């Protein structure tokens, strides 16, 4: 009797164990948030999800945004594709075209959450021409010119919201002999350069594609933008520059710089700015301790007008990748939905208050959202916040024309065609028209593949 009970029990137990094992699922999550404090927050979210879901393991891996496409290609080739990634929309569209994205899971999540809860424009950006969702919009930022309001006032300069104003101010604020620079535009061959160029190009009505999907990049409008860009770059610190040079602004050595809303917490909080001010620069030379007046003295011009008004922004999305294991796919879908749950969503967005803006309606008005732990939203005040977010109404990019998305734009982005063109003109001093011709030829090659 006793013995049979033991046997029954052990059979039951082993059955339970087996069912546990078959339920076991892994979600490997690659995120473009590589800073250690952000990774910690994402780890925390992952652990919470693990605690709520037996047998599911979430593995968080930080991958640099510029390396994401390359790393993905290597992973696919090696058969070690992650289940989920978080990256910008251009890379998402390029990956979508490679046929490795699990559009069914995306459709499922949208059905569960409700399509109407997403901002329409954000969803459109990640939709394929066939109407499939290549990714799910998660957070977005806008870019504009951040500038020293106090210096502008001192010199009687107008806000840098038109081409003329920007050029005038850049010239007036540059004093190279005293290590002072008027502006920073990207000149390195990376995505920051493309982002700065895109905003200026859009304000000049330059485009990559027309509404029929024809390549129209090689146009007088683009050429004019390149020439203007070249002139601006004269007021840059010497040599190729990228976003890291924002440190010069924080050190009080630069008048204007293009940056996304991600800069908001650096400007406001000494703790966050520290990374830019000391650890990676020579202490005695940096010339900068944290300037508590910087928030007050900094203003933001999100919209630049020339032939039309343009703000530029990009969004990051969550992308489920095809997997042969049903359990993994199910766990990935659950994890994505968990990430959209207001509690976890707000926790995520608070990693960079103002930098990461919600893509679900209603979150921005949530009192919990406006009450970030460091008080950044309070420091900026409601009015400034409203001005910053106003940029989202006019958000544009190269990949969406007339409500239609052109994934080829993502492939062109991934191959850094535009940043290399800019580098050639600004640093190598090559002829703008010839460089533009070469870039167009390269774009055609990429599209032919």
């Amino acid at each position, binding site marked *: 009797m006793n013995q049979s009970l033991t046997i029954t029990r052990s059979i039951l137990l082993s059955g339970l164990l087996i069912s546990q094992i078959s339920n076991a699922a892994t979600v490997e999550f690659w995120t473009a948030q590589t800073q250690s404090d952000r990774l910690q927050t994402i780890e925390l979210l992952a652990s919470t999800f693990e605690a709520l879901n037996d047998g599911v393991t979430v593995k968080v891996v930080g991958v640099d945004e510029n390396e994401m496409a390359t790393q993905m290609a290597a992973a696919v*080739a090696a058969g070690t594709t992650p289940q989920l990634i978080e990256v910008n929309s251009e890379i998402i569209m390029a990956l979508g075209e490679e046929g490795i994205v699990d559009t069914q899971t995306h459709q499922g999540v949208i059905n569960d959450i409700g399509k109407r809860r997403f901002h329409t424009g954000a969803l459109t950006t990640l939709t394929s021409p066939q109407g499939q969702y290549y990714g799910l919009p998660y957070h977005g930022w806008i870019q504009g010119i951040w500038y020293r309001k106090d210096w502008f006032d001192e010199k009687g300069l107008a806000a840098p919201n038109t081409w003329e104003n920007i050029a005038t101010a850049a010239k007036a604020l540059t004093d190279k002999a005293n290590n002072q620079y008027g502006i920073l535009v990207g000149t390195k061959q990376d995505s920051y350069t493309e982002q700065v160029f895109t905003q200026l190009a859009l304000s000049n009505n330059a485009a990559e594609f027309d509404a029929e999907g024809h390549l129209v990049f090689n146009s007088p409008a683009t050429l004019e933008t390149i020439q203007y860009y070249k002139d601006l770059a004269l007021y840059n610190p010497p040599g190729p520059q990228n976003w890291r040079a924002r440190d010069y602004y924080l050190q009080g050595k630069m008048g204007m710089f293009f940056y996304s809303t991600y800069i908001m917490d650096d400007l406001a909080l000494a703790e966050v700015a520290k990374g830019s001010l000391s650890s990676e620069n020579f202490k005695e030379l940096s010339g900068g301790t944290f300037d508590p007046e910087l928030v007050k003295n900094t203003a933001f011009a999100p919209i630049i007008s020339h032939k039309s008004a343009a703000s530029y922004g990009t969004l990051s999305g969550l992308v489920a990748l095809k997997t042969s294991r049903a359990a993994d796919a199910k766990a990935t879908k659950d994890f994505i939905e968990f990430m959209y749950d207001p509690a976890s969503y707000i926790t995520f967005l608070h990693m960079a208050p103002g930098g990461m803006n919600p893509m679900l309606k209603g979150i921005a008005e949530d009192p919990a959202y406006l009450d970030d732990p460091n008080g950044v939203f309070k420091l900026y005040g409601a009015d400034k916040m409203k001005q910053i977010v106003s940029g989202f109404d006019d958000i544009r990019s190269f990949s969406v024309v007339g409500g239609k998305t052109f994934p080829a734009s993502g492939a062109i982005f991934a191959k850094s065609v535009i940043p290399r063109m800019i580098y050639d003109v600004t640093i190598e001093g090559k002829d703008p028209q010839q460089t533009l011709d070469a870039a167009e030829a390269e774009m055609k090659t990429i599209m032919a593949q």
Partner: protein
Amino acid sequence: MSSVLIKNESRLGLKLVAPAVGIIGLLVIYPILFNLYLSFFDVQLNGSKTFVGLNNYTELLGNPRYYHSIGVSVIYLIGTVIGTTVLGLAAAILMNQTFRFRNLARGLILLPYFAPVISVVFGWQFIFDPVNGIYNHVVVDVLHLTNERENLIGNPDSALFVVILFDIWKHFPIAYLLFLAKLQSVPKDLYEAAAIDGQNPWGRFWHVTLPELRFVIATVVLLRVIWNLNRFEDVYLLAPNVETLPIFTYYQAFAGIVDQGAAAAISVIQLLVLVGLIWLYVRKVLKW
């Protein structure tokens, strides 16, 4: 009887060699052949392939950047190979003399070679930072040699030379080490005989040291050529705008979505060139 024995022995020999042949085939021959095969296709990430014939090759050979990168590579190779060899030789001859703390000095010379490349690269970058770096601080603010701050690493005209300088500094210790090892085995009586013949130090170097070191120098040069033709990390981390062949390959094939077909085509050409060069060098210079 003996013929059976010979047969058995040769069969055993084959069996003993088979694993090695198998491993080499699997790890060396197969990837090369597969690479050759891939170079004729447009490969998508999900695994599907489209045959494009010689398209990858014609595109590559029609790209002016390709020839530019070959030119940059040649300057880089000449600069670094000569630089490391000469500096390594000089250091080895110096360190072969007897003086106090010689062992300590011998060890210290190796330091750049030990240091992880990522940390020294960032060190160099901070030194040459145009706004905050110590180089500009000293040259412009302290010594007032020029009025304009320079970005030596970023400026394309000087970047190649900074990269060459960096490579020489980082890698001359390996040449030094090989030369020093050989120098210590050169018999003293050769030098004494040369001295009796009336040779001054320069003559002794020319008639004794150099002939003795001939093969080591040739080996060092060969190794450096192979290494530096394929060197990626030092150049890319320090100055990604110096487009040597590996950097060009990276931008063409591995930046963004990997273009496996194009990457294969580039590596096939590079392999052929490298094999040809080495064959020529081994036959003509090393005379093996």
